[in-house]
């Protein structure tokens, strides 16, 4: 939270529909009150503990009530994986038949060798060879889009990259934001046209890792015919690193990435329409790519937002 965001809040707090009342806000150690009740017939949810027969908050946030379940919702916290979440992860190491991925959570997730689609859809031969060749699929420090397959009782997270959508990311950049800014949605893969020429892909991972890059033949192809013709579907395409990208396209990718950073600076929820709003405003106002993260533009955008 920086002073620009505080300024945005002070200017526009009347225009934001969701301003919580002081009764809804709690800090750690305060009683969680719903009406006059503090206990009777209520269920204890996240962010609360039971202290001498009263619900007490353990985090800063707003009191949320769903039926009888009372919980405190934080507005800044570590990512908590749930089954079905689309996440981006960075490969940390290989441990036996698993890759360990950093997913911005309190522990690393594992991606099992049997939970991925091999390049070209070839069925996997279970032998020692494919374990030795794991590096050719995902190497250390590769960025991989994946889905949370299951979360075990002890908190271990299993990922999978089955399907044409998931795989290694290249030709773009990664931005890390606070996970609460990302809403869980039906689709997390978005294609935006920042102008008529370039298609830019945005992958908004539930874990707060956001990928902005070029249309990626392997990761973003939904057409099965197309994926068959590709030699490397679902796996990592190493040859793309040698692809040359013209300056205009790179500029467009950076512009979209800067737009995400602007939203993150202002602690505003991040979704494609809003990202495009920032890109459009920067184009309308003739702000160059390098000036987008400067104070002047961020303040001007926050003023535009609140009007």
């Amino acid at each position, binding site marked *: 939270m920086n002073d620009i965001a505080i300024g945005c809040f002070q200017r526009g707090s009347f225009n934001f529909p969701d301003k919580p009342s*002081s009764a809804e*806000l709690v800090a750690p*150690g*305060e009683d969680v009150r719903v009406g006059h009740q503090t206990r009777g017939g209520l269920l204890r949810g996240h962010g609360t503990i039971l202290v001498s027969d009263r619900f007490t908050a353990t985090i800063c946030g707003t009191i949320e009530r769903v039926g009888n379940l009372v919980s405190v919702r934080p507005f*800044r916290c570590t990512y908590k994986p749930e089954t079905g979440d689309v996440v981006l992860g960075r490969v940390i190491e290989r441990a036996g038949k698993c890759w360990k991925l950093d997913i911005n959570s*309190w522990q690393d997730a594992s991606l099992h060798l049997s939970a991925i689609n091999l390049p070209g859809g070839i069925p996997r031969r279970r032998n020692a060879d494919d374990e030795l060749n794991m590096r050719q699929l995902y190497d250390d420090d590769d960025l991989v889009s994946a889905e949370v397959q299951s979360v075990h009782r002890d908190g271990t997270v299993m990922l999978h990259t089955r399907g044409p959508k998931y795989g290694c990311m290249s030709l773009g950049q990664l931005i890390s934001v606070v996970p609460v800014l990302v809403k869980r949605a039906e689709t997390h893969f978005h294609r935006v046209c920042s102008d008529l020429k370039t298609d830019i892909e945005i992958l908004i991972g539930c874990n707060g890792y956001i990928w902005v890059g070029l249309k990626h033949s392997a990761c973003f192809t939904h057409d099965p015919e197309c994926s068959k013709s590709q030699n490397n579907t679902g796996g990592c395409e190493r040859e793309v690193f040698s692809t040359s990208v013209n300056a205009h396209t790179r500029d467009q990718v950076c512009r979209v990435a800067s737009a995400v950073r602007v939203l993150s*600076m202002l602690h*505003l929820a991040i979704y494609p329409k809003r990202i495009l709003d920032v890109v459009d405003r920067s184009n309308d106002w003739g702000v160059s790519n390098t000036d987008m993260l400067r104070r002047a533009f961020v303040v001007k955008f926050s003023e535009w937002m609140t009007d």
Partner: protein
Amino acid sequence: MEYVSLEGLRLDGRRPKETRQMRCAMGVLPAADGSAEFRAGNTRVMCAVHGPRECVNRGERDDERAIIKCEFSQAAFSTGERRARGKGDRRSVELALVIRQALEATVLVHLAPRSEINVMIQVLQADGGVRAAAINAAVLAIANAGIPMKDTMAACSAGYLDGTPLLDLNYVEEGGGGVRVHVATHASRGDKVVVVQTDNKASVEVFEPVHALAVEGCAVVQKVMREAMIEHTSILATLRGREAL
């Protein structure tokens, strides 16, 4: 030296049972998961929290709970006399240990097993009450990172000079040679005391009123910290919007 004047005022014009003006700022470091700055008078302490995240050192990993790692360092420019102070000297190591133990009693560590929480504390200006300010900054930063805690732990120090118990000593008063008591409490859980430390010898007759005064001070500090947390959360909630996650 006269620490309490005949009118009952201290060197900086406070009454004996008055704290210095406190200010809390949260989210001051964008790169950290949680950060805060706590100021009491001229004392300024900054804290950054990273985590909970995967344990770097496998040997330290605990399958039942998160481990807390604490680092305390004081800037060379933090006192009147410039002196290089590392994080390896005896005082820093001891302070880091005290803060770590206090945090382990406050943070709900069992909610993030096999992970670690890094707490980095840096003193920018030292004008007395560094120990208490460091604990307060750490608690604010942890709250900012969204890590669950039993209560808003607050710390305060008190001393005994010129036959009077004094709350929240400044640098000059700390050098006065009297008893000093540092206390951290869970004030909303019936003033549950988490940390008590004393410098210099104290008789029971002196210790008790000084300790009681420090505990009272903690409740005042907690109130200030809570207000800062609520205000900060209000801003975050308004900007983020309340649409479902």
